[in-house]
């Protein structure tokens, strides 16, 4: 799920932020593994000293395993509406989080006090919590082995660090884009923002892993709203540029000023669109839309903690459970459906060198030829599937999905980039539309809701087009489709090839208690789904 609380917290400052839409990057990314463009610097010696101090205090306190993370997390927002600036916000937070495993029980302590006394106090807090919560022997935590990395360094590949770009330059780009959209008759309002993230993360564990990593992410939320002069209708076009783990150059390459007029026209055109007739339609879903459907109906149900009940009290469990009944057996979709988990696609919001367990993530197929093949795991979770990995003659190793959204939150299993791999035939959007007799083509993500086991979902979108006889014949509005996950994916009968692969992303995937957010990308190709239930959401009473 994407997280409402987080949305409110940042949204309060950043105005009308929702998720994202086309002008997607064309990702040759799929084939490319990330190699850092600049040689990253080693860990700062003073930081390393503090980490070692915490690890020593943990060992002294009897911990069998401990890790410490010292991180600096920065955000930068530039917020505009129409022809004016609303606000400029810079946030900066730094501190230490220490996790200890004492008698097989976790404890976590965190403090912003980055002195030796501060990190030791955080470690003592973690130890005292682990002691208070001591687990019975049968329930104790077991960690999968991980190869130590004594000097890991990673930097998100980027050309321009967004934190070096002057505010005036950022504001100017937004204001000019807003002006273009406002030229369209009917467009009365534009909200646009820039949102940048920079995380400098240092990690050390008693296993001898020490990593230092810098992650950069950039996003330009943009929303144009058209209002009928008699106040009888209003429509918004938003989610036009996807978030990505890239530098400032990514936003300028998306050419918001050049595209804003089109986005405004799309908002105005929605006012005149035909309300959809309810019924069953073949749906042709653009990657700017489909990424979110993948996120909710594939990526979440294949998180191992959900499948085993560890998220039962919040995000929920999974229909794709228990693993013993699903792995190697359950048909999620057609034979040409392959779903990959990874943290190394360039631009992917989950892409990283090492995870927050100190593990180098690998690429793994969650769904292989339509059958469930694996789950997303951490070091604590991988041994829970030992029987499966042994039967497959695969090593029992974490896929590197441990993540914490700050120094002050404990790490746990979060989503890697989860992507629908292209089909063998190198076709794209146009070919799939042309092959469709009666259907609806959907561009961009809109409203989304799914149950706690990920069976029943409802998705809206940004732009809806009626397809008749292989041609787009007009624009529709008030469209949402309802689905049951396995039926929906098994109804997929056409997918695009490599040339049509694009990535969509969310900055705010929410999970866990206390709630944490995770940024994640989903690559996919345009795809067709047969006979899906479409409702009309435009009601009067």
């Amino acid at each position, binding site marked *: 799920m994407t997280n*409402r*609380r987080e949305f*409110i917290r940042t949204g309060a400052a950043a105005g009308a932020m929702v998720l994202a839409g086309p002008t997607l990057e064309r990702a040759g990314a799929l084939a490319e593994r990330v190699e850092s463009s600049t040689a990253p610097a080693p860990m700062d010696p003073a930081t390393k000293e503090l980490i070692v101090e915490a690890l020593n205090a943990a060992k002294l306190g009897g911990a069998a395993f401990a890790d410490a993370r010292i991180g600096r997390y920065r955000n930068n927002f530039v917020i505009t509406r129409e022809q*004016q*600036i*609303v606000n400029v*916000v*810079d*946030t*900066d*937070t*730094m501190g230490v989080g220490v996790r200890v495993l004492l008698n097989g029980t*976790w*404890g*976590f302590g*965190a*403090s*912003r*006090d980055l002195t030796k006394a501060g990190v030791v*106090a955080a470690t*003592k*807090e*973690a130890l005292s*919590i682990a002691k*208070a*919560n001591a687990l*019975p022997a049968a329930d104790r935590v077991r960690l999968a082995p991980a190869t130590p990395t004594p000097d890991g360094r990673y930097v998100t590949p980027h050309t321009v660090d967004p934190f070096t770009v*002057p*505010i005036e330059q950022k*504001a100017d780009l937004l*204001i000019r884009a807003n002006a273009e959209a406002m030229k369209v008759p009917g467009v009365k*309002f534009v909200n646009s923002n820039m949102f940048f993230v920079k995380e400098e993360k240092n990690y050390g564990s008693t296993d001898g892993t020490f990593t230092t990593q810098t992650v950069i992410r950039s996003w330009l939320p943009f929303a144009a709203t058209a209002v*009928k002069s008699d*106040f009888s*209708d*209003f429509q*918004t076009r938003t989610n036009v540029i996807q978030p990505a783990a890239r530098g400032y150059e990514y936003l300028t390459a998306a050419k918001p000023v050049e595209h804003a007029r089109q986005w405004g026209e799309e908002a105005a055109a929605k006012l005149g669109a035909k309300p959809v007739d309810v019924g069953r339609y073949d749906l042709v879903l653009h990657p700017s839309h489909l990424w979110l459907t993948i996120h909710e109906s594939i990526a979440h149900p294949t998180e191992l903690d959900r499948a085993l*009940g*560890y998220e*039962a*009290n919040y995000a929920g469990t999974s*229909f794709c459970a228990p693993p013993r009944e699903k792995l190697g057996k359950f048909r999620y979709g057609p034979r040409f459906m392959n779903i990959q988990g990874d943290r190394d696609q360039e631009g992917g919001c989950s892409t990283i060198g090492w995870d927050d367990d100190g593990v180098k993530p690998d690429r793994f197929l969650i769904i292989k030829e339509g059958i469930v093949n694996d789950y997303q795991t951490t070091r604590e979770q991988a041994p829970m599937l030992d029987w499966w990995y042994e039967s497959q003659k695969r090593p029992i190793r974490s896929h590197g999905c441990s993540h914490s959204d700050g120094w002050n*939150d*404990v790490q*746990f299993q979060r989503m890697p980039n989860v992507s629908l791999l292209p089909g063998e035939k190198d076709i794209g959007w146009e070919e799939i539309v042309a092959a469709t007799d009666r259907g609806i083509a959907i561009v961009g993500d809109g*409203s989304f*809701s*799914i*149950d*706690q*086991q990920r069976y*029943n979902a*409802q998705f809206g979108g940004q732009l809806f087009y009626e397809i008749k006889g292989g041609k787009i014949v007009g624009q529709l509005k008030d469209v949402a489709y*309802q689905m049951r996950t396995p039926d929906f994916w098994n109804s997929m009968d056409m997918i695009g090839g490599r040339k049509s692969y694009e990535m969509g992303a969310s900055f705010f995937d929410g999970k866990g*208690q*206390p709630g944490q957010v995770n940024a994640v990308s989903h690559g996919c190709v345009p795809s067709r789904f047969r006979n899906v239930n479409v*409702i009309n*959401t435009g*009601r009067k*009473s």
Partner: protein
Amino acid sequence: MSAPRSLFGSGSALSPNDMMSRSEAQAFVEKVVKLSKAETIGVNVSGGYTGNIRFAANRITTSGGVTNSQLVVQSGYGARHAIVTTGDFSPEGIERAVRQSEAIAKLAPEDPENMPLLPPQQYTDVKAFFDSTANLSAAERAAAAHTAIDAARAAGDLASAGFIIEGTNFNAIGSNTGMFAYFPSTSANYQLTVRTNDGTGSGWAAADHPDWTQVDFKAVSDRAIEKARQSRSPVAVEPGRYTVILEPQAVGDLVQLLAFSLDARSADEGRSAFSKQGGGTKIGDKIVDSRVTLFSDPADPQLLGQPWTFEGLPLGREVWIENGVLKQLQYSRFWAKKKNARPNGGLGAVKMSGGDATTEQMIASTDRGILVTRLWYLRQVDPRTVLYTGLTRDGTFLIENGKITKAVKNLRFNESPLFMLNNLESLGRAVRVAGTEAGGNVVFPTLKVKDFNFTSLSDAV
């Protein structure tokens, strides 16, 4: 931790500086204000301690204790302004934040809607700080978690998953105009899901109060277990329009979301459910059943919210809907000035007045209907009508001939709180609820409504 974290004591063993008393916070704010070279400076400092414990599959999973503080500095030059936030409270760190906000503010374009900082204000005194919460230990949190874990283990056929979070915090603001506000608070929130091991039943219960001693862990555990057992082996019903009894949690889940649609400016601009066709807003119109009154009041003993906004605007009792009539919308300071209205903060801590019907009476008077424990994954589908979609979760039951007869599968709805509050049959007592997706201090009654719109079935348990 053994040392008490009482407000005026020595503070947390973890970091003594993260809880500030009123005088400490005031001295700190004044120190930051004095550093300013800008025309205006607004300062916000907040911090404290939170402790949490999480469990699932009848075992404790993760647990932590965190101290943290944050300084927010807004510097201004005329209509130019910028905000910088930092957690570095060293003299150099504070000075850096002030200088950086000044540097960015000078570069920022002018904000034509910039409002001057407020002069000193009078605030209502709200007591939301309880020593019972402030002095908690990790062992007490663990014992509370074991109330449910032990009961579920003993039952043999149940799996408990829950989360307890408690905190001791302060929030303070001040400015070079002499305005200062300080609010210390504690919080304790408990949410529990109990599932049957056969995977067919799931029950949920929760409690929330700033005073730890007001959270009845045993009662929450009993209720979630009862719901889990009752909800086993649900049957399918045809989606459609139903008479529905929504427990207070479910009502809060949906009606609280009106907060996101009450903005006066959007209504004036023609892009809100409260815009009137032809122009203007629906203020003064009867928009829902005349038994509906919805208000915010931080001093209400069931709410106990912060009595001021992030700008230092005092918050008192604000009635949004009275006897079904839309009394006012939410005015920012800028929009209020432009429209000659009074700025009134947001929905914030919110309460809907109840009635005197008991849930038993509501059930007894229902020929065929559905009882809903809570709602889940609510997302707006159409802002023109505040239409939301979402699903029922953790205890959905069929009522036939005045009795609960069986558990039913969960259902997806597409419904607007505005439509629902027009279809009211009866209201129960208003209680504080604990787990809405938007969070916060929320008090809602049980409601019985007709024609609630369920659009599809879910196999999810």
